[in-house]
């Protein structure tokens, strides 16, 4: 009897301490979560409110859930054009990057030649050097090529700046695929391009997905290069178009917030529905980098 109480006491205390620390941990985590999520909830709620409502009732639910403002942003503020441009630029950049980096990575991973290591290091060096530092020569080069104020200026810049990380990821991945696979195909009369296309491509799909996610997010959100390269209204991407739009509608808060929601929605939805792929893609890109 006495023994039992002696044994139970520290257990009880320990459990209580454990419970208390778990309580404080969750309180802290929830508090932080509110800091992250409240501005976003406010962003969405405000998009449905009139300017008067925003002033009178900043934190409550909107009086009506009308999508009128969104329609106005889409049509009047040219968001339809910006979306089209962002999608086009991001997709073509991705296609170009996946094409060039897969071919390069295949050469570096599968062939022995004198400059192999040098070229791999040349690509690798680019991981640490932001392309923004070369913006002036790049700007003049685009000017000379007549590509300023065209979507190609963005596409070529994005695809080139994505090369280092992509070549690195893909080369690493390709090296893990057993040589016997391609040798068997070669015996069967498959060409090098055939091996890459028919045998390697299906196998490196996870790496291609990583490359896509690593690049998709910064390109979609990029503001710097459109700011410098694009002047025509009909060629602007979402972040650049939005910054213009903010200047025009500084007092129409409903419009402003609706614009922000629409600009953020594609990536947010993608993230919410594919957060696993998103997270694993981004971490593998960073950790290997």
């Amino acid at each position, binding site marked *: 009897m006495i023994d039992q109480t002696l044994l139970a006491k520290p257990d009880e205390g320990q459990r209580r301490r454990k419970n208390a620390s*778990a309580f404080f941990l*969750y309180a802290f*985590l929830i508090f*932080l*979560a509110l800091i*992250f*999520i409240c*501005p976003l909830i*406010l*962003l969405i709620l*405000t998009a449905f409110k009139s300017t008067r409502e*925003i002033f009178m009732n*900043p*934190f409550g639910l909107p009086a009506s859930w009308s999508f009128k403002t969104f329609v106005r942003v889409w049509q009047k503020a040219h968001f339809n054009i910006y979306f089209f441009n962002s999608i086009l630029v991001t997709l073509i950049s991705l296609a*170009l990057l996946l094409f*060039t980096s897969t*071919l*390069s990575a*295949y050469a*570096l991973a*599968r*062939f022995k*030649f004198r400059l192999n290591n040098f070229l791999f290091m*040349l*690509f690798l060096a*680019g991981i*640490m*050097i*932001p*392309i*923004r*530092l*070369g*913006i*002036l*020569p*790049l700007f003049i080069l685009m000017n000379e090529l007549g590509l300023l104020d065209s979507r190609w200026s963005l596409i070529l*810049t994005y695809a*080139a*700046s994505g*090369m*280092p990380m992509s070549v690195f990821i893909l080369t690493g991945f390709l090296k893990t695929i057993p040589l016997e696979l391609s040798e068997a195909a070669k015996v069967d009369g498959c060409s090098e391009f055939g091996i*890459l296309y028919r045998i390697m491509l299906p196998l490196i799909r996870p790496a291609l997905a990583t490359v896509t996610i690593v690049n998709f997010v910064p390109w*979609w*959100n990029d*503001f710097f290069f459109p700011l*410098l390269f694009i002047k025509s209204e009909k060629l602007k991407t979402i*972040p650049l178009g*939005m910054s213009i739009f903010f200047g025009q509608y500084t007092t129409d808060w409903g419009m*402003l*917030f609706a614009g*922000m929601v629409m600009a*953020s929605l594609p*990536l947010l939805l993608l*993230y919410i529905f594919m*957060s696993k792929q998103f*997270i694993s893609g*981004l971490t593998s890109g*960073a950790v290997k*980098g």
Partner: protein
Amino acid sequence: MNKWLKNHIYLLFLLPGLLLYGAFMVYPLLSALVYSLFSWDGLVRGGFSGLANFKTVLTGVAYKERFWGAFLHNCLFFIITFGLQTTIGLYLAVKLSRKRPGMEFFQTVYFTPYTLSMVVVGYLWLQLLNPTWGALTQGLRMVGLSGWVHPWLGQKSTALITVILVNFWRWIGFPILVFKAGLMGIPVEMNEAAIVDGANRAQIFRYVTLPLLIPTITMVTILTFIWDFNAFDLVFVMQGSSGNPHYATDLLATLFYRTAFGDSTTGGAAGEIGIASAIAVLMFIIIGVASYFGIKQMQKKEVVY
């Protein structure tokens, strides 16, 4: 010829990538070095001028103050971000990597702002922090803390730290994510062995987990450094290309932008290409030196058990 090509088929594979990478990345980055050594008249290159552009940036009357001011701001940007992410961020990563209910949810929430464009983040916080009708202002007033309301972005003493914290709000999900991935990569046997040896939780973290996590922390630190010394969008969107108020939030990248493309706020003369290139090269050197020592450090500290 056909046989030669067959033996060198890899050249065909390499060609598109090398063309793209060479023309639009290697060439511009190397040219920036060359540009900085010449005097420029608008877009026309003049004579070789040695290190004159660097001298102007580092000691010239018009640039000296701006350059060192911006450099200091970038340093603060990095130091504060680094300090917060390797304490709070690491703590959260450790907690989130334990098997407890809800951890995935919190992870997802903390990472959400990272998917937003800097333009949206900048404008959103510009609205929230507005000293007359911003939501944060109104919220503070509602709970009777109107004394806490300040024009955070408008006064010199608080503008930079506010921008840094807004950036941190968007960024922190990323270091947490990578730290967590690093923690998950540590074999369970390591911890078990330490427990058998009688180590407590703090000791396990200090002597087992932390040493194994140093490479990941260093990697994230290098990435943070590169990113913070290139920061541009947030200041441009929130504080304008001059880093208002009165250059209090000016960064190397905004200084570079003004020098190269003109000051949108004053409509000043555009295109000091030589001087702007010198600023870019100095940024390049800062980033290069820091990454070099960071990687060195990482290789030295890498523990092999």
